[in-house]
C-alpha cells in the first residue's frame, strides 16, 4: 500500500475530514465577525464570549427548563441575538463615529465581563452536555469512525454559511445592507431606516456565534473560557480571509481547518501556531487578506 510522507492514506483522509469539522466552527465564527466588521466597521471582540453564551444558554435551557437540543438550536441564537441587539443599542451604537480602536476596546471589555460573570457562577471546569439521542453513535467510513454528530456539524455549518452568503450578496435586503455601509446618508434618503438595519445586522452576527456555541456544546467542554481560546484563531482566520469579506471568511475558515488538521498529523506540537504563521505570511504578501479588497 502506498503511503504519503509516512502516513497511510486512510489516516490522512480521516485527518482531513476532522480538519473540515474544525473548519466549520472557524467558518461560522469568522463569518459572524466578517458580517459585523464588513457592515458595521466594528471589530467585535465579544464574539468569543457570545459563542460561549450560546453553549451556556443551551445548557441552561436543558437543565432549568428541559428544552432539548433541537429547540435550543433555534431558540438560543434568538435569545443571544436579542442580547446582542440590546448591547448594540445601549453601547456600541455610540461609537460608530469614533476610531475602530474604541469598538475593539469596548467589546473586549464586554467579553471579559461576560466571561467573569459566567466563571463566578459556574466555575471553570465546565458543564456536561450530552449529544442528542438522534445523533448519537457514528458511521464506519472504512478509513475512520465518523461520529454522526460531527457529520451533522459540517452539514449545519455549510448550510448556514451559504445561506448567509446568499442573503448578503444576492438578495435585496443584502443589497440594502451593503449600500448602507457604502453610504448611509444616501440610503437613508431613500427612506430606509439605516440604524435599525445596522442593529439587526449586529444581532444576526451575534446569533451566528450563538449558533456555533450550541453546535459546540456536546463535543467541547462548556466552560467560560471556551470562546476566549477560540476567538484569537478566528480573528486570524478573518485577517487571512480579508477583513469583512463574507465569502473569504467561509473559504478561509474551512481551508485553515484543513491545514491545521494536517499539521496535527505531521507536527502536532506546531498545530497551535500554524494558523498564525500563515497569517504572518499573508499579511506580508497580501496585506488586505486573500479575498480582501484594497481600500
Amino acid at each position: 500500500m502506498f503511503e504519503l510522507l509516512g502516513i497511510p492514506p486512510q489516516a490522512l483522509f480521516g485527518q482531513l475530514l476532522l480538519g473540515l469539522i474544525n473548519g466549520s466552527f472557524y467558518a461560522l465564527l469568522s463569518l459572524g465577525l466578517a458580517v459585523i466588521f464588513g457592515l458595521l466597521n466594528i471589530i467585535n471582540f465579544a464574539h468569543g464570549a457570545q459563542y460561549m453564551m450560546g453553549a451556556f444558554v443551551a445548557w441552561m435551557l436543558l437543565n432549568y427548563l428541559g428544552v432539548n437540543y433541537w429547540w435550543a438550536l433555534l431558540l438560543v441564537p434568538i435569545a443571544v441575538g436579542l442580547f446582542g441587539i440590546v448591547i448594540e443599542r445601549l453601547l456600541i451604537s455610540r461609537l460608530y463615529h469614533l476610531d475602530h480602536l474604541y469598538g475593539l476596546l469596548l467589546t473586549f471589555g464586554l467579553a471579559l465581563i461576560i466571561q467573569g460573570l459566567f466563571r463566578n457562577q459556574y466555575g471553570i471546569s465546565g458543564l456536561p452536555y450530552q449529544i442528542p439521542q438522534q445523533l448519537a453513535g457514528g458511521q464506519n467510513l472504512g478509513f475512520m469512525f465518523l461520529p454522526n454528530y460531527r457529520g451533522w456539524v459540517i452539514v449545519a455549518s455549510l448550510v448556514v454559511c451559504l445561506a448567509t452568503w446568499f442573503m448578503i450578496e444576492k438578495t435585496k435586503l443584502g443589497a440594502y445592507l451593503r449600500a448602507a455601509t457604502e453610504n448611509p446618508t444616501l440610503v437613508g434618503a431613500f427612506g430606509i431606516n439605516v440604524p435599525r438595519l445596522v442593529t439587526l445586522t449586529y444581532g444576526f452576527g451575534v446569533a451566528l456565534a450563538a449558533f456555533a456555541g450550541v453546535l459546540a456544546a456536546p463535543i467541547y467542554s462548556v466552560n467560560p473560557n471556551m470562546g476566549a481560546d477560540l476567538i484569537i484563531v478566528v480573528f486570524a482566520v478573518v485577517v487571512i480571509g480579508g477583513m469583512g469579506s463574507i465569502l473569504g471568511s467561509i473559504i478561509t475558515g474551512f481551508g485553515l481547518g484543513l491545514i491545521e488538521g494536517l499539521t496535527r498529523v505531521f507536527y502536532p506540537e506546531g498545530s497551535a501556531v500554524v494558523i498564525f504563521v500563515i497569517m504572518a505570511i499573508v499579511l506580508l504578501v497580501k496585506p488586505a487578506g486573500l479575498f480582501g479588497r484594497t481600500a
Partner: protein
Amino acid sequence: MKIRTMMLAALAATMMAGTALADTAVKIGVLNDRSGIYADLAGEGSVIAARMAVEDFKAADKGIAVEIISADHQNKPDVASTIARQWYDQDGVDVILDVPTSSAALAVNEITREKNKVFINSGAGTADLTGSKCSPNTVHWTYDTWALAHGTGSAMVANGGKKWFFLTADYAFGHALERDTAEVVKAAGGEVVGTVRHPFPGTDFSSFLLQAQSSGAQVIGLANAGGDTINSIKQAAEFGITQGGQALAGLLVFITDVHALGLQTAQGLVLTESFYWDLNDQTREWSKRFSEQNGGKMPTMVQAGVYAGVLHYLKAVEATAGKDAAAIMSKMKEMPTEDPLFGKGSVRQDGRKIHDMYLFKVKTPDQSKGPWDYYDLVATIPADKAFRPLADGGCELVK
C-alpha cells in the same frame, strides 16, 4: 493581577484582651491559577483551605499572626516568577503554597531557593521537584507524576493493557507524566506504540485521538490535566474509542473534572488520587465545612494539600518559635505530619511528603447516590509504595 489581602489573626488577637500579643507574624502567599483551566481544582478553593487551616490551628491563640494573600499566575512561569519575586522581596511573604502547572512550580522552586524562603507545593505534578530539581526549601505535598504513573499505570498494565499510546500535554508536566508512566509500562513488560504531544491548552483532540485509535494500542494514556483531560475524555466517548475495545487511562483526573464530565461520560475511569472527600469521617466533616464556603463544591486533593501544608508549616513555626527558613524546613522534615485529610505521614529528606495514595474507579450514574458521590475505592497504595524511592530520584540532598 488580582491580589486580595485578608487580615485574620491580627483582628482576633486585638480583640482578645489579656492574651499575649502575637510575637510571630507569618505571611502566606497562595499562588495559583484563578481564572484558567486549573482555577476550579486550585483557585479560590485553595485560599479557603489555607484560611481553614489557620482557623483550625488556632494560630492567634498561639501567638502567631497569620496573613494570607493570593494571586493569579495564569499558568505562566514568567508571571509566577514575577509575583514570587515581588512577594519575597517587597511584600514580606514567608511561604508560597499551591502553584499548579509544573513549569510555573519549577520557576517558583528556583526563586524560593535563591531567596531562602519556603515553598510548599500542592498543585503541580512534576516529580522533578523532589528529583533532579529538588531544593532544600521545597516540600512537595499532594501527589506527583511518579505516584500517578505507578498508581494508574500499574493498575492498567495488571489488567492486561500492555500496548500504550500517549496523548501528552506539551509542557513540563505532560512530559514528566509521560516519561514516568512509560517507565512503569516498560518495566511491567508492556510497550509504548506511539506518542502525540498536543498544544497546551487545547480544544479539539479528535485528530490526536484518531491517531491513537489507529495505533493499535490497548490503552490510551492521557498525560494531561484539567480542561484538556475533560475534552479528551468527552471526545474519546464521541469517537467510540472505548466501545472499540481501547481503554482510556486518565493519568491525572481530579474530582472537579469528573463533575464537569458527568458520570455518563466518565463512568468506569480508573484514576489515582491522594484524597477523596468521602474517605472517612474526618474527611467528610472537613469537606462539608469546606464546601459550605466554596459554593457547594467539594474539595480537590490539591485544595486538601494546601490545608494540610499550611497546618504543618504553622506547627513548625510554633515549634521553632520563629520563621527562619532553614529551621522551619528541618523541623517540617523532622516532625511527623498529622492532619484529618491525609492522616499520619512524613516529609522526606528530598522534600517529598509521604502518605497513602488511592486507586479509584468512577461510579456509574446508577451507583451514585447524588452530586459528588463519584468514586469507588479500588485499592489503597500504601505510603511506602506510593512514591518514588528516595535513592532513585537523583536529588542532591539525599546522601
